[in-house]
């Protein structure tokens, strides 16, 4: 599978940057000619992954780094990678359970949204090292284009 286009960016772990990250990924993904509804879902997914890095990985410390990479593949699929070097996840299986949160004031729905709105989700994590979330979504061939 060939990468047709990609964007990679890094930013400080500030809550202000969550909206920047999701808008940036949404703008890039619009090259796929997907629907507005698809774009809305992609925004939620990025928002969840980046928020997790800020709150959980770095426990709201604002001097850390978060990296986002978005790629569009030949087959019209979109791949999003969000990476932090925070505290990592001890028990990934538990973290992925719907409504599980290590913070009682949160909903525990972040991973559930990521999984539901994307076709694939992989979480790599090492306690003390950090976490990488890899998300993939395939889009059908645009019908108008196919007949053009």
């Amino acid at each position: 599978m060939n990468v047709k286009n990609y964007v990679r960016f890094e930013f400080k772990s500030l809550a202000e940057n969550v909206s920047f990250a999701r808008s940036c990924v949404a703008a890039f993904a619009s090259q796929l000619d997907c629907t507005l509804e698809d774009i809305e879902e992609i925004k939620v997914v990025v928002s969840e992954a980046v928020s997790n890095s800020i709150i959980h990985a770095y426990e709201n410390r604002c001097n850390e780094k978060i990296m986002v990479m978005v790629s569009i593949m030949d087959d019209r699929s979109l791949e999003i990678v969000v990476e932090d070097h925070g505290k990592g996840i001890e028990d990934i299986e538990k973290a992925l359970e719907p409504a599980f949160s290590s913070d009682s004031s949160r909903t525990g729905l972040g991973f559930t949204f990521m999984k539901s709105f994307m076709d694939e989700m992989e979480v790599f994590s090492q306690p003390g090292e950090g976490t990488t979330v890899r998300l993939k979504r395939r889009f059908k061939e645009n019908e108008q284009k196919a007949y053009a």
Partner: protein
Amino acid sequence: MEIDLKLIRNTLVVKIQGELDLLVAEKLRREIDSKIQSQQIKNLVLNLEKVSFIDSSGLGVIIGRYKRMNAKNGHMYIVGASPAVEKILFFSGINKLVPLYRSEQDIINI
């Protein structure tokens, strides 16, 4: 994001404008909580007409405020959620606990 709080007798109407994410969740929680602590508030209306985006951080504030209102035998209503926002609300199941209305007028009419 802008938060507009209006007290009408024992009802607190909260109008939110902008994107309801991590950045604004904490501020929204504080503003609402400082008002609903008062015993006299029996109803909380969240007007989301001008909310263009919500994620699980925003949902957390809504669910938490529902729990608070419920604990004091009060009521909560959500008004004017756009289709995109409504989808996220439905996903969390909050619509089973908090009734959703098109407009503030619709609540008054029931």
